[in-house]
C-alpha cells in the first residue's frame, strides 16, 4: 500500500528510493572496473525499508546504521558525490576518506556513527536515546541493523537495558534472509538463529514488537510511525522487523549486478528481465512494487517516472565524476582526527 503521505512526499520517496537504486547499481559497476575499494554492501532491494522509515522521523532525530548504510546516508540527504568520494577514499568524501563504505557517517545529518561490527551499533543507538531521555528532549533514535545482529549477545543486552530504562529508541531490524542462498553460494550463511520469530527475542525482555513486509513502503511507514510515536511519548523502545528477500546481487560475498541495471519496463513486464532475476523483479522488489502503486494510483505518470529516472541517472553520473575527479587526501592527514584538540 502507499504510505499515507502527501503527493509531493510520495514523489520524494520515489526520488530517494530510485536514487539509492541507481547509485548502488553504479557503485557495483565501479567496483568491477577497479581499483578495489574493499569489501562493501549495497542497499538494493531494501530501499522500501529505509526510505519510508526515514520519512517517519524529524530531522533532529538520530539514525545509527551498519555496514549496509548507503541507503540511509542518501536518504537523509548526504551528497551522492561526496558519499561516492568517501567510498573511493577521496579527500572530498563525507569523512575525508577515513571511513570508506563500511563507516561512512554524517553527524550533521543525524547519522553520527556507522558500525560495521555486527551488533555493534545497537547499544550505541540505544545509548544515544538514553541521552535524549536524560536531557528531557523528545528526540527519537533509530538503531538499524540486520537479522544477523540478532545472533550477537550485544544486541540482546541492548534490548534488555533499553526495555529496563524505557529509552526512546526504535530497533529497526532489516531481515533480508528470505531465500538467502547461504554459504553454498559463496556468501555468508543465512541468518543462523534458532528463533522462529526474531521478535520473540525482543518480547522476551519486554520490548513490544511489530513486523512488516519490507517491500511494502506504506506498511513500513505506518509501523515506523507507530514505533516512533511510542518512543516520542515516553513509551519506550519498539522492535520493528521488516522482512525482505535478499536481492540476488547481494547474495555473493562480493555484490554483483546480474543481468545489468533494473529497467523501468520491468514495472509492467518483469518477464523481460534476465531469467535469474525474473521472480525477484516480479514478486520481491519493493521498489518495483512501489512504482506499480505510484502508477496505479496516478501519483505520477509513466513519463514522469521516466523523466525522474533520467534525472537521477544524470545525478549519479555527476556523483561518479565528482568522486573520480577528486584528489586523494594528503598522506599526512592520516595522523589527524585521532583526538580532539591534538593531532
Amino acid at each position: 500500500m502507499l504510505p499515507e503521505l502527501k503527493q509531493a512526499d510520495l514523489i520524494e520517496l520515489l526520488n530517494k528510493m530510485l536514487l539509492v537504486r541507481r547509485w548502488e547499481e553504479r557503485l557495483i559497476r565501479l567496483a568491477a572496473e577497479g581499483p578495489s575499494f574493499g569489501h562493501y554492501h549495497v542497499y538494493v532491494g531494501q530501499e522500501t525499508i529505509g526510505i519510508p522509515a526515514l520519512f517517519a522521523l524529524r530531522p533532529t532525530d538520530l539514525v545509527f546504521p551498519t555496514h549496509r548504510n548507503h541507503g540511509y546516508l542518501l536518504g537523509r540527504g548526504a551528497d551522492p558525490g561526496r558519499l561516492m568520494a568517501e567510498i573511493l577514499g577521496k579527500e572530498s568524501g563525507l569523512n575525508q576518506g577515513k571511513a570508506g563504505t563500511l563507516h561512512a557517517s554524517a553527524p550533521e545529518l543525524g547519522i553520527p556513527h556507522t558500525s560495521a561490527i555486527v551488533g555493534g551499533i545497537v547499544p550505541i543507538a540505544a545509548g544515544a536515546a538514553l541521552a535524549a531521555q536524560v536531557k528531557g528532549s523528545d528526540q527519537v533514535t533509530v538503531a538499524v541493523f540486520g537479522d544477523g545482529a540478532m545472533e550477537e549477545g550485544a544486541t540482546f543486552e541492548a534490548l534488555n537495558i533499553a526495555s529496563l530504562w524505557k529509552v526512546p529508541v526504535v530497533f529497526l531490524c532489516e531481515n533480508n534472509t528470505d531465500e538467502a542462498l547461504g554459504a553454498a553460494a559463496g556468501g555468508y550463511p543465512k541468518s543462523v538463529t534458532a528463533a522462529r520469530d526474531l521478535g520473540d527475542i525482543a518480547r522476551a525482555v519486554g520490548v513490544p514488537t511489530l513486523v512488516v513486509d519490507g517491500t511494502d513502503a506504506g506498511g513500513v511507514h505506518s509501523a515506523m510511525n507507530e514505533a516512533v510515536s511510542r518512543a516520542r511519548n515516553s513509551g519506550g523502545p519498539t522492535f520493528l522487523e521488516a522482512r525482505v528477500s535478499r536481492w540476488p546481487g547481494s547474495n555473493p560475498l562480493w555484490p554483483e549486478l546480474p543481468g545489468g541495471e533494473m529497467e523501468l519496463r520491468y514495472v509492467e513486464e518483469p518477464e523481460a528481465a534476465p531469467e535469474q532475476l525474473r521472480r525477484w523483479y516480479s514478486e520481491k522488489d519493493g521498489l518495483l512494487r512501489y512504482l506499480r502503486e505510484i502508477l496505479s494510483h496516478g501519483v505520477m505518470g509513466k513519463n514522469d517516472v521516466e523523466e525522474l529516472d533520467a534525472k537521477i541517472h544524470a545525478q549519479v553520473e555527476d556523483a561518479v565524476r565528482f568522486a573520480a575527479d577528486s584528489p586523494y587526501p594528503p598522506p599526512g592527514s592520516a595522523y589527524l582526527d585521532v583526538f580532539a584538540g591534538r593531532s
Partner: protein
Amino acid sequence: MVDATKTQPSNPSSDTRELSYAEALVEAIAELMKQDPEFLIIGSYILGLGPLRGLFDKVRDEHPNRILDPPTAEVGFAGFGIGAAMNGLKVLVDLSTASFVFEAFPQVVNEAPNARYMSGGRLAVPVVFHFLHGLRGGGAAQHSHSPQAMLWNTPGLQIIVPSSPADVKGLLPAAFATGNPTIFVDHSKLMPVRGPVSNSAKEIPLGVADIKRPGRDVTVVATSYSVQQAFAACESLEAEGIDVELVDPRTLVPLDRQAILDSVAKTGRLVIADETHRSCGVASEIAAIVSEEALGSLKVPIIRVTVPDVPIPFSPVLESELDPTASKIADAVRMQMTRKQVGAR
C-alpha cells in the same frame, strides 16, 4: 604491601587537606555531577568491594536519576555510554573490576576510539571508562587484570593511571575536559592511601609527568599503585645512600616522553615498575621508547619489574611471588648500581 595510611609528602600547604584516594575520587565525581547537569554515570562499584565503598553513597543519594545501575551486561552498557556521549552527555562508565572490560571490548576498543577518526573529526565521544586493576588480594586469575597495556595498543583512547589522591582529583575532570574517550584506571589498594589535596587546584593537564621524588642515581618509572610501591622502595634505598628519581607519567596516552628521557639522561639507569604483565606491557613500551630515543644515555641495561607472564594464582604466597613489590623494585635499583657499565664495553 605499602603502609596505606601513610601520607605521601607532596608540598603540603595551608591550602591543602589530607584525603584518602577514595575520598578524592568521590569528590572529583561529585563536583563533575554538580557542575554539569548532563553528566551521567552508568555503573556504581567505583570504589570496589573494599570497606570504603560506602563513601560513594552520598553521590548516589544526591543524584539518583543520573547514576544508573545496569544489568550485568558490560558490552551493552559500555555501548550505551558511548552512544549517550555521542549524543552530547558526558558519561562515566564504571566497569568495576578491570577484568570485566574484556566483556566490553568490542565497544571499548573498536567503537569508542574509532568513532571520531572515522567521522573525519566530526564526532566527539566524551566517555570515560573506569575500572580497578591489578592484584587485589585473592582476585585470582579471572579478577586481577591490568588491561591498560592492551588498551595502550589501541589508538584513540586516552589512558590515565593516577597514583595519589591529588592526582585522581585533578585528572578525572581533565579527562572529561578533552572530550576524548578515556580509560581511567584505579587500583583497589590505592583507595585507602592518604595524601594532601589542594582546595583550590583544578585540573591536572594530561601528558605531564610528575617527578614524585627527585633523585640522582637511578630513574624509576612507575604507574598507578606501583608508584606507591616504588615510593616505599625509595625510602629504604635512601638509607643505603641510593638516591632514586621516581617518575610517575600519570597518563600513558598522552605520554610525557620528555620527562622520562630527561630523567634517564640525568641518571643513566632505568628501572620500570608496573603491574601489567611483562610481555607487551606498559614497561615494555617505556623500555622501547628509551632504547630508541636515549640509548646513548643508558649506562646499564634497563630492568623491568613487572608481573611475570603467568596467570594470577589465588594463594597469597603465590600472588605475592608475582607482585612487583617495593622490595623487588629496591633489588632492581641496587642491581642497577652494582652492574658493570655498558660504556665500559
